[in-house]
Structures are given as C-alpha cells and as structure tokens.
C-alpha cells in the first residue's frame, strides 16, 4: 500500500530529477563551451522580456523545442519495440532512484502500521538489497539500447546497439567487483548502512580501498556511456548510434535517461566511496538529527554529487574515445584483475585485519588505508609492466599477406 509519504517522495523525486536533468544539460553546455574557449548559452532569460539571467531560461526553451518537434517515425521500424525502447530505458533509470538516499532523515516522526519512525529521505527506505537493486535496474538499460538499435532498422543504430550491449555487459563485472569490496567492508547491502558506517568511522571508503574506487569509477563511467566510453553513439562513426532514428519526445526521453545514468553513477560513487552525506565536523554521524543538520546533510550529499558530475563533464573533453578493442582490453585485462586484487585484499583484511593491527598496536583503519594504497600502486605497476606497450592493432606485417 503506497502511503501518502511515499507518494509525496516520489513526486518530489521525479520533479527534482527532471529539473536537475534540464539544468545540468545547461551546465554541461556551459562547461563544454568554456573548455572550447566559447561563452556558451547566455541569452535566453525570462520569456518575452529582454532579461537574460545568464541563459538560465535555456532549459525551458530546449524543452519547448523538443516537445513541439515533428513526431516522425521512420517507415521501416519495428513499431512496438521502437516505442518501447526509450520507455524501458527511462523507467529503469528512474526506478533505480527508489533506493538511493538523497540525505539521511528528517526530524519529523510519522506513524505507520503502529510504529513511529522519522521520515527517511529515500523513496523506499530500508531496502536490504539496495545496492543490488540499483545495479539490477541500471543493467536493464542494455535492453533499451539493444531494442532501440534493433527496432530502428538502421545499420548505424544496430552497430551502436551491439557495441553498447557488449560494453555494458563487460563493464558490469568490474562494477560489481567494485561494489562487492564496499559491501564486504560495510557488512551490508543497504545504502543507508554503508553511509552510516563511513560516517561513524569518519573514514571514507575512498581512503581505505582506493583500488576499488578506481575500478568502480572507470566502470561507472563506462556504464553511463559517456566519453571516453561513448562508443554506442560515437557521432563521428555512427551518426548517433542507437538513437539515430529517434526524434522529438522519444529522443528527449533517451537523452534524459543518459543524464539519469550519469546521476546514478555519481550518486553511487559518492555514497559508496565518498561518505554520502557525511562531512567531518559539519554533519555529525548519528541518526538523531535536528533541522539544520538534516538540511546540511542533503546539501553535502548533493554538493558531492554535483562535483562528481562536473568531473564527468570535464572528462568528456579531456580524453579521446577508446577504440573498441581497447575498451574490451580495459574491461577484461585491466579492470577485472584489479577488481579481483581489491576484493582479495579486502577479504584478507576483513578476516585478519583486526588481529594484525591489534598486534601492531595501530588503529585498524589506518593500517587498512596504508595497505589499500600500497596494493593500488603495486597492482597498477604490475599491470603497466604486463600489458603490451603499444596500441597497434593492425594485422602484423608477416600475416598481412598480399596487399
């Protein structure tokens, strides 16, 4: 039975996410423009006046443009799948947010089924498999991409869909390994617990398992399909990839979904590795909160997420796109071993860590952090030494045969 509380939260979340997506498109365009030495959108302000507001009206204009565009469906598409694909992607991406905490709790008690508890800032509080749920909902995206690519009946779309399918499947593995490490340390799959555990110890997971962060970060980038991992829609090669044949509101759905994937990735990075709403000396760590603390926690979390998203946006212009074989090498020969090493280290730590550090007379987390960083450096160095020192993938001279 959905309660009023849940309905209100869902409404707020959807409204918030859509607004955020609209404005982050503007931010993305600004960042892109500034990096290219341009000014970016700075004209659209309040409609019908000459007030410019640094271009803050741009999202409205963009939205109106998308909605009023001609709704055109190519003749040879598989109509059912063609319309289904963007909807599947969008719904799955939105669903993932059901378990993502946007803060900690509000200091108002509500009574449900006879028990009194404070309002938690998450649509579905207390989901014990929160991490797995986000992960599962995120991987449904691959259906949308594949269906969209297939249903469009277009070579470029199909190629984009296939590439994306292979990419998403490959990177799910390192992504899972990155999450597993965190789950092992926290001893729970609940996102709220993972945050609380970091807040109470005061040490973020990024410090104690940098290798896990690295693996998760790169895999998260790849899962959200942004440059340098945007092979699915490489404009220079595939026109628009799997959404070449989409236009109007369907394209809008797909583009918003891509932004939602980036949000999810950023939220997960912040929650799993950067302490969620925790900031030393500002947010406290208990479950009893006052209004100011509750609000500060939300702001801290959103601030961290915004910084991560900004990094995503800057990264887009910083490195060239991977070639497909490099992409696969990255997943299977780099991230997978690194993830396994990370998991192994943490497993050993969870088993013996306490005893070792007690014997040495040092705080466990400090020892763990030092171990984590040493493992990162050693594993990276070994990998750098072991991988081929050229990226040449042409057929070799001997096997090239006749020209």
């Amino acid at each position, binding site marked *: 039975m959905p309660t009023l509380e849940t309905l209100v939260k869902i409404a707020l979340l959807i409204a918030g996410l859509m607004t955020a997506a609209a404005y982050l498109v503007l931010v993305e365009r600004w*960042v892109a423009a*500034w*990096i*290219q*030495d*341009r*000014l970016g959108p700075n004209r659209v302000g309040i409609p019908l006046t000459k007030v410019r507001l640094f271009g803050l009206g741009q999202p409205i204009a963009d939205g109106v443009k998308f909605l009023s565009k001609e709704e055109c469906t190519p003749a040879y598409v598989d109509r059912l799948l063609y319309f289904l694909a963007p909807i599947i992607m969008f719904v799955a991406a939105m669903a993932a947010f059901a378990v993502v905490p946007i803060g900690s709790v509000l200091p108002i008690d509500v009574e449900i089924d006879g028990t009194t508890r404070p309002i938690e800032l998450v649509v579905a509080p207390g989901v014990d498999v929160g991490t797995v749920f986000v992960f599962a909902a995120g991987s449904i995206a691959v259906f949308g991409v594949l269906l969209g690519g297939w249903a469009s009946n277009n070579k470029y779309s199909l190629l984009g869909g296939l590439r994306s399918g292979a990419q998403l499947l490959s990177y799910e593995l390192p992504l899972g390994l990155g999450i597993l490490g965190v789950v092992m340390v926290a001893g729970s799959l609940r996102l709220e617990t993972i945050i609380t555990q970091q807040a109470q110890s005061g040490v973020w997971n990024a410090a104690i398992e940098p290798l896990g962060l690295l693996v998760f970060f790169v895999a998260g980038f790849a899962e959200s399909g942004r440059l340098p991992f945007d092979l699915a829609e490489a404009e220079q090669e595939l026109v628009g990839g799997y959404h070449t044949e989409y236009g109007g509101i369907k394209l809008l759905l797909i583009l918003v979904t891509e932004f939602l994937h980036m949000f999810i990735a950023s939220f997960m990075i912040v929650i799993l590795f950067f302490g969620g709403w925790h900031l030393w000396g500002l947010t406290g760590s208990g479950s009893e909160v006052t209004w100011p603390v509750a609000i500060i926690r939300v702001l801290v979390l959103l601030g961290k997420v915004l910084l991560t998203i900004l990094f995503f946006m*800057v*990264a887009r*212009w*910083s*490195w060239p796109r991977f070639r497909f074989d490099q992409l696969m090498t990255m997943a299977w020969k780099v991230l997978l071993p690194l993830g396994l090493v990370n998991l192994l280290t943490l497993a050993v730590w969870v088993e013996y860590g306490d005893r070792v550090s007690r014997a040495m007379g040092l705080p466990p987390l400090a020892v763990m952090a030092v171990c984590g960083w040493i493992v990162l450096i050693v594993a*990276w*160095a070994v990998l*750098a*030494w072991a*991988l081929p*020192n*050229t*990226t*040449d993938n042409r057929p070799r*001279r001997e096997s090239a045969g*006749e*020209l």
Partner: protein
Amino acid sequence: MKRDDPGKGDRHLLPTGPDGCFAQKVPVPVSRAKLRWIEEPKLGPAGRTYLPLFLGGLTTTLRHLLGRKVTVQSPEERYSPPDPLIYRGVHRLNRDAEGRVKCVACFLCATACPAHCIDIVAAESPWPDREKYPQTFNIDELRCIFCGMCEEACPVDAIELTSLYDLSGKSREEMIFDKAKLLGIYDMTKDAEPMRSSRNGG
C-alpha cells in the same frame, strides 16, 4: 568525360567485382620492396601507467576552462574579418570603368562551381568589345558553399566574394540573387573593398 561525374573516368579502370563495387584486391602500383611499415612509437615506463596522458588531458581542459574566451557577442558586437580581401562572403558582380557588367558570360564560374548554384543565360553583347554578356545571372546563395571556386575561375575578374557574412532572408526565392542584386552589392562594397585583383597588380 561528363563534368558532372568527376573522377568517373579514372575509376572505371580499377577492377570491379560482380556487384560493381571495387574488387577486394586493388593492385598497388608500387613494389613490395618499396613499402615501408611504420611502427607505432612504443610507450615508455611512464606512458604505460597512463598517468601522463591522464594528467595531460585534464590539464589541457582545465587550462581552457579558465582561459580567455573568443566568442564575439553578435549582433551587439560585430565581427570584422581580419583581411576582408580574402574573406569568402556574399558574391558581387563587378562593373568595368564604364559601369557595365564585366562578365563575358563564359560560364567558367558555373562550370567550376561544385554546388551548381550559378545559372547564367548568355546573350549577344550590345557592346563592341566582347561577343557575349549575361542576360541573366542568378546565384542561389542558399546552395552556395562559399568555396570561392567561381572567383578563382573567372578570367576577367567579374565575380568576386565580399566580406559580407551575415546574409539572411525570409524566403528561399529571396535568397536567389539576380544580376541587379549582385551588381548592387558591388556598388555597396566597392569603396570598402577594392577589386581583389587590383591588389595583385590589376
């Protein structure tokens, strides 16, 4: 060879497969001994860790993020081409010393135009110094790609590109410039922009 299919004449010499596409093995007209296989440079120890590339990309973007912007705030600010004499904007048809159109209707510009946007109707010239002159001379500015080939091709420097870059109109018909309009552009720009060839000795 028909001018409309550039390159067709060379291409049919290549062997083609049954479907008309090029056969798989196109003979390379060099001996294998002369071929040089260029190897990619090997990565050094630092390069193998990917850190220099990672930091290099990031510093470049951050430098530009904070750097000076080059946007010109048109229409409040006007962009002026650094050298208007080599800018490729709207066309004009030049007049000679007596104010007549210089063009001799030789069709070289229309032939050179890759966008096929010049349409000329030639007529017998009323003047004794040439045989033909253009009765009508239309350029579809919407089709034009402003490549400057017409200017290159003209033997009498009759057609030139000016430095007017912001041309706009309310209909497609309006954007097909006729002879009068093109001559008008000459009258409009002749003071600011002398004939280009005059700079090169006339």
